[in-house]
């Protein structure tokens, strides 16, 4: 089984695409082997199949020299995107009278952010765009550290 076909079947198994979409993608693969099937999207006869990432992953690997702790340190976190969305909605419950104090405290700590300017719809948009985010940090200065942030 080739890689693209396996990827489509995995997307189908994960519920990212429907059986019909999987069928169209496989048919497109057979007719045009060069069709690009991305991690979260595919294109068949002009129909773009955009699937949503379900989880935000944060992977950190650091050795002793970097952390000062004995032995390697690893962090492996998987957070559902839905939880991020719900958390963002929770922020909308902050009373307006608390905004000023929060803004003041944030700017005192070097974060010049005005909370009242952040609207729930903007945050939703931000979460949606997180799906395209990938951060890879690899340092070898003093100790070896790897940080990966991505959506899957």
């Amino acid at each position, binding site marked *: 089984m080739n890689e693209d076909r396996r990827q489509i079947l995995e997307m189908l198994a994960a519920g990212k695409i429907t059986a019909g979409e999987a069928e169209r993608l496989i048919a497109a693969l057979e007719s045009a082997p060069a069709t690009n099937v991305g991690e979260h999207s595919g294109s068949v006869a002009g129909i773009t199949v955009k699937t949503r990432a379900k989880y935000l992953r944060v992977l950190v690997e650091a050795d002793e020299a970097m952390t000062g702790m004995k*032995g390697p340190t690893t962090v492996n976190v998987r957070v*559902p995107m839905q939880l991020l969305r719900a958390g963002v909605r929770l922020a909308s*419950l902050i009373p307006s009278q608390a905004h000023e104090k929060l803004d003041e405290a944030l700017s005192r700590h070097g974060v010049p952010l005005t909370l009242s300017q952040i609207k729930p719809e903007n945050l939703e948009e931000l979460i949606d765009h997180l799906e395209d985010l990938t951060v890879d940090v690899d340092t070898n200065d003093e100790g070896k550290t790897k940080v990966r942030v991505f959506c899957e």
Partner: protein
Amino acid sequence: MIPSFAVIGIQTPEWHMPNLWIPLFLLWIPVILLSPLIFLVLVAIAIAGRTNIWRLIAIFWNILASLRGTDVRVTAEGNHVLVCIL
């Protein structure tokens, strides 16, 4: 869908705890029994925060329902911690 199980595992170089499976669905029993009290607490929070009670309930329910799939594994100094919500 709300989570049904939480798995918690802690391992240290000297001590190894088998993974603890916590049946979260059993928590529904005390939650239902305490629901009038929980509702009153939520009403008090809603009044204090000057927000809509139903919006507050919806947000908390959303958070609860989206917890499923959360997985945190940390290893440091030979200690391992696992928290997984299923």
